């Protein structure tokens, strides 16, 4: 009897829980909508619409005057140089820190199987420093450095150096620990110094992974250095920011296209290098 009624009932048996879930979601989302001042109507307000329509109308044709292109070329090169120099400086800090905090070179681990607690305690400050370095976004560092050393690419280079040393240091340390440990252990047990054990025991097997991760980070650094111009740290970002402020739509389009090309080119270059070096 009951079964036949259920068969005849066309309603979805899961309807009520679904309805309750939807109501709950809306109740939870409501404060979010209020906090974000979610008013789609502002988009079609005549004042905003007017400004934006005028801006959009300027998008075509893209600005291709030779003066502007020359400026653009300089900014593109500056962006690339910022990423490269920043990453090089990051390596200066990341390599020593990664050696400090990796457990792969622990001498005490040879005897007892795990590092001595005192040595482990000494690794923690290095780890903490790496976490602090990478947890503050690079653009915040750029904003701070622009105020400390002035407008221009120097601030961007320092910002990349700081954040990326944190990221590279952490991953490098993990890579040292993930490769075959036996060569390094054998060297350490035979009485070689830690640096020698690293160079001849770990580096040969880890080099490939280290190179490809570094190249990947270089790609990220190119993208990041475009963004950092928005706070005044030079490069393409500063040009986009200026052009948007001046409502120069044509310039914005040209810069965005350049940015796309730059990211694509960096992508290709890094995969080429990865194939050749790694």
């Amino acid at each position, binding site marked *: 009897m009951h079964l036949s009624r259920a068969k005849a009932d066309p309603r979805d048996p899961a309807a009520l829980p679904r309805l309750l879930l939807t109501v709950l979601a809306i109740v939870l989302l409501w404060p979010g909508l209020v906090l974000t001042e*979610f008013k789609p109507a502002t988009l079609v307000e005549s004042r905003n619409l007017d400004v934006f329509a005028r801006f959009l109308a300027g998008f075509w044709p893209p600005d291709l005057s030779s003066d502007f292109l020359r400026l653009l070329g300089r900014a593109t090169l500056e962006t690339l140089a910022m990423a490269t120099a920043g990453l090089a400086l990051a390596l200066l800090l990341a390599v020593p820190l990664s050696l400090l905090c990796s457990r792969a070179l622990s001498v005490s681990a040879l005897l007892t199987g795990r590092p001595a607690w005192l040595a482990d305690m000494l690794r923690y400050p290095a780890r903490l420093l790496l976490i602090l370095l990478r947890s503050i976004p690079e*653009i915040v560092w750029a904003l701070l450095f622009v105020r400390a050393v002035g407008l221009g690419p120097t601030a961007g280079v320092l910002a990349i150096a700081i954040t990326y040393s944190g990221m590279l240091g952490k991953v490098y340390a993990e890579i040292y620990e993930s490769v075959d440990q036996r060569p390094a252990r054998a060297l350490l047990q035979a009485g070689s110094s830690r640096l020698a054990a690293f160079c001849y025991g770990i580096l040969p097997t880890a080099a490939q992974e280290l190179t490809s991760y570094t190249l990947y980070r270089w790609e990220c650094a190119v993208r990041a250095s475009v963004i950092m111009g928005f706070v005044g740290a030079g490069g393409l970002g500063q040009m986009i920011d200026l052009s948007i402020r001046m409502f120069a739509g044509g310039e914005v389009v040209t810069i965005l296209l350049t940015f796309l090309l730059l990211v694509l080119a960096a992508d290709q270059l890094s995969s080429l290098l990865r194939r050749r070096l790694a």
Partner: protein
Amino acid sequence: MKRHIEALFWLTLVGAALVWSFNWLQLDLVRLLRQDSLQQMGSYAGSFFPPDTSPTWLRQIFKGALETLAISAIGTLLAALAGAALSLLAAGRLGMLAKDMSRLLLNALRSVPELVWAALMVLAAGLGPFAGTLALALHTTGVLGRLFAEALENTPPGPALALRQAGAGPVAAFCYGTLPGVLTQWLSYTLYRWENNIRMAAVLGFVGAGGLGQMLYFTLSLFQQSRAASVILAMLVLVLLVDALSAWLRNRLG
């Protein structure tokens, strides 16, 4: 041997690129390390301490952090909805023309960085968190749309086909045949992007799009370093909390 020479060639090239970079930028690191400029930087860094921990400022920071969370949540949600709609087109369910057009649109949305979208949206929607929400939504739609479409393409077509042949309409066949197969994957992609977007929402404010970033930008411009220091600390705590939470969730669910 040949391989060694080739590697040497590429390494030289990398070295040359490094030298060129430092030359082009004319980075005067030596000048940065000189006494007076170090002193200057030191005194600027010192002015951030101690961070402002007065209750009124902390309350404002808390509000800013909530705003940041709300921007990221609403932005990601909008993106998930728009991404789901576009992914249907991009997975080729409604014809080849729609597929190519929607793929082009998704690529365009994705390749413009969030901060550029934010600067553009500030023009379209005015200063404030709404611009940040839209910016995140636009960029994330591009990312999620592509991921969603890939999930759709990889899901087995059997259940939906069976429903269709049994006489179900296309909508019902999608809802009961395809959606259950992709929903968990869609959800995990969305959560992963949300995590990214929380971090991004914290800095979108630099171009005037609300949240903690806007507070940091204002306080630094007004030379209120001790207030700025507490905003930076709040950002740090937010990022670390999100990292810890997502690592914990991944351990539990993964």
